[in-house]
Every structure is written in C-alpha cells, then in structure tokens.
C-alpha cells in the first residue's frame, strides 16, 4: 500500500487573509452603523472610513454553479470579498457607495 498522506493539523484558518481590505484596516476600530435601506448595513470607522454591506438570502446548500455566480457578482461589484452570516445569508462588502445600487440589481 502506498504511503498515506499525513494531514496538516492547521485548525481554524486565520481570517485576516480573507478580509476585505477596509475591514482589515479598521479591525476593531468601528464607530457606528446605520441601515440606509433594508438589507444594507453602513458601517463607519473612527477614522472616517465607510463600508456598505449588502445582504442576500441563499439556499444554504448551494451547487458549485450558484457559488461561482455569487463569486462573479462579488468580483464585479464587491471587490472580491464576501462573508456568510450565521443564518447563511451572504454579505457583499463594498467601500464605495456608488457600487451599492448596481450590486443590488445584479
């Protein structure tokens, strides 16, 4: 029998690698948020940086095509970063308010 590969017990990956640059820069430095419209959160940092999160419902159990489509949307409108909420919504983070409306219609 061939030599089996020993697993790398790396545990929980660091989320810093996957954070949106604005979130990474302002990690632990947020001041307040408001909700400009249903499904959109607007967070402001102490240094004035702003980020808009657009939330969309998913079916939780997704086929690879759906995930790739969500990735395409994220690449086009949301600077390539997403997160999932505990209830399996997907959140697209954008640092430019002008990108919010086109993202929602996408």
């Amino acid at each position, binding site marked *: 029998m061939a030599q089996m*590969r020993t697993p790398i017990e790396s545990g929980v990956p*660091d*989320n810093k*690698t996957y954070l949106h640059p604005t979130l990474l820069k302002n990690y632990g430095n947020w001041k307040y948020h408001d909700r400009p419209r249903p499904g959109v959160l607007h967070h402001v940092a102490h240094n004035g940086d702003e980020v808009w999160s657009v939330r969309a419902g998913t079916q939780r159990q997704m086929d690879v*095509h759906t995930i790739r489509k969500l*990735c395409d949307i994220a690449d086009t409108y949301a600077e390539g*970063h997403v997160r999932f909420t505990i209830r399996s919504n997907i959140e697209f983070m954008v640092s430019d308010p002008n990108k919010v409306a086109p993202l929602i219609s996408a």
Partner: protein
Amino acid sequence: MAKKMHATPMLDELESGPWPSFVTGLKRLASEKDYMVDVMGQLETSYRTRKGYWKGGTVGVFGYGGGVIPRFTELKDADGKPQFPDAAEFHTLRIMPPAGMHYDTDILRKFCDIWEKHGSGLIAFHGQSGDIMFQGATTAKVQDAFDELNELGFDLGGAGPAVRTAMSCVGAARCEQSCYDEAKAHRQVINTFLDDIHRPALPYKFKFKFSGCSNDCMNSIQRSDMAVIGTWRDNMRTDETLARKWFDKHGMNELVNDVINRCPTKTIQLKEVKDVSQGPKISSVKINDTQCLEIDNGNCVRCMHCINVMTGALAHGTDTGATILVGGKRTLKIGDLMGTVVVPFMSLKTEEDYKGLVKLAQKIIDFFAENALEHERTGEMIERIGLVNFLEGIELEVDPNMVSTPRTNPYVRTDGWDDEVAKINARKQAVA
C-alpha cells in the same frame, strides 16, 4: 451522463416562492452527474414516505478519527441492491471555516473546483455546527478531496463525541460593538484542542462559541457548552454629535418609546441639561440644547437595546472583556438549557488574558472528560453533580454574580450571612 431524471413532483414544489431553492441547484448538478439524479430520486422517496433512508457507518481520512459524516443508502430492493445505485454513498466532509466566515472569491472558486472534481458539487455555507459542509462524496473520493482542501490551509472540523468546530461573530472586523478580538480568542482556544476535535475521545460533544457582545449573534448562550460573550465593566461611552443627529432624525416619541421605556432596569432618564446628576457611575449625553439622556451604569444589565438603537451615540465602555457561560445545550437527556455564568468578567486585552481563557477552557474540558457520563453534555453533568461541585472542580470561587436573575430571585439564605459578607469584603480588599 444524461441519466434519465426521476419524477420529483414534491421537490419541484420547493422551487416555487420568492427565495432561491436548493432543488434548482440539485437539478443543475443532476444534468451533469448521474450521482445527483439518484440523490434526487432518494430524496423524493423520502418526502413521499416521510422517512429518512440514510444510515451512518465508518468513513474517515488517514490520521483522523472524525470529521467526515458517512451516509449510506438504506433503500434496497429484495436482493440487497440499492434502488438508487449511483447514490449509494453520500458522505459529508466538515471543514472549519476562517473565524467570522470571511472569504475571498479566489478561495471559494478553488473549493468549487475541488468539489466538482471529487464530490457531488453541493456545498453548504454553513452547517449549524459552523462548518463548511462539502456534501456528497463516495468513500473512494473522501481522502482525495480532503488532501486538496488541507493543502489550501483548511482542516477538518469535529464530529462525534469530540470538541466541535466553533463559531465566532463578524466581531471586530465590522462591528463597533465588539468587546474583544473574537477571531483571536476563537483560534487560540480551538487550535489548542485540535487533538480533541480530530480524535473523538470525550463523553459527548463539546461546543465553543464566541460572541463579541451580549447581542450574542452566535446564539452562544443557547447552543454552546462554553460561551464567551463580550461585555464591559466601566461606564457606557456617549457621543453628542451622533446623539443629536439621531434625535433630529427620529424625534422625541421614538426616544421615549423605543429607548427609554424599553430599558429593562429603568436605567435611562430624560432630564433637563441643568438637572443632570454627576457621579462616577453616571453617563450622560445631550440630545438637544436643553435636554439630556442620563444613564445610571450601576443599574445597567448590558441588554444592548439602547446601544443597538442609538448606534454610536451610545456605546459600550472601554474596559472590555468577556463573560464565560457554561452548559448551554439543546434538549436530550433533560430539556434545553441556557449557559450558566461561571466567570462574570474576564478581561481580554493582553496575550496573558487570552492564555488565561485557553487555560480555563482546558480545565473545563478536562473536568468534563473525567466526570461526565457517556452521552451527557456539560449542562447535564452540572445538573447532576451540582454547580458548586463543578465550580470546585474547575477551581473557581463562587461569586454573587453567578446568581441567575438576582433582581427577581426571592430565594435568600441568611444562615452564616456575616461570615459570607466578611469573606466577600476580604476578597474585594485583596483585589484592590
């Protein structure tokens, strides 16, 4: 490919309605893989007869004892042959996500490619345990899929009587209400117990969850054996500019009805600016030129409501840390339990503080491993042996803050009262 689809009238019904349906995804995959055609056939059968037809078994990856959920079909004909032969095996890999569930599209695409190649193409973001669930692989393919995911820096999660995959909220990354570095606490604690995750050897499951504030977005108090919930012990901070802005937009009715009236301990008062009290436990903020909110922090129970409504205008204090609760669980031997406070406040600022958290977790797990019965959660163990014995076991002093609902709890024992008062005063002096 192009195996003929089974008739699935009940699944089709799930595609109606405004939200995306997993059935649409299954159909799309079924048009490419015979595997999924039969999975849909089995699922439709389940819906029709209202029975599940998957049974467990033993499938794993080399070097680990858990983390893969094996599923074999039970729908067999008289000769013992599966009715849906292509879906005879449908195992799930549990993979631990990055803390806070952040991703970039690059890594998600890589997941898709791997799972399209080795598995069914069906991925759940995320299962209720907090894992990415790669659903649907044959026994032969499980190892290949895991090897590729592991090379990307991802590791298997927990299954069976083991420490389970933990969850943490979005936290410091995008929330002003975060009271500690959730991702750091999450990783430091969980990565200490990897052996207990990968090689199930506990009496039963043990779950950690990390919430940055008492909004408890991770529902940790209900769902985890050890909940770490952010809190603070100094006064609430205020911001006049944001308070005035909020008041201009929302007005007096909303301030009174939604903020002041809804404070559970009647801590907030509306006052004329000239009448505002001063004191070490008072926070106040002007909402216009003549009126002020006054908050008596000594009576605040950290319900978060006013902070949630007037974000930024009111905020948690700066002396932050976490409350540790133990024993939450869903129903099993006894009914649902919420976590019990065992550490009212633990500062989480320095490396030392985080090491202290890991040490406490270690003690609790060791005690659980030694003392719990087979198939008994931490909460059930505490019910059986008594909280006092548990606290003694993990070497924590009993504290008045551990009393549940102290403001409405009518049970008081006054025997030995003076001795206990003397003890508490001595302890307070020792700390000061």
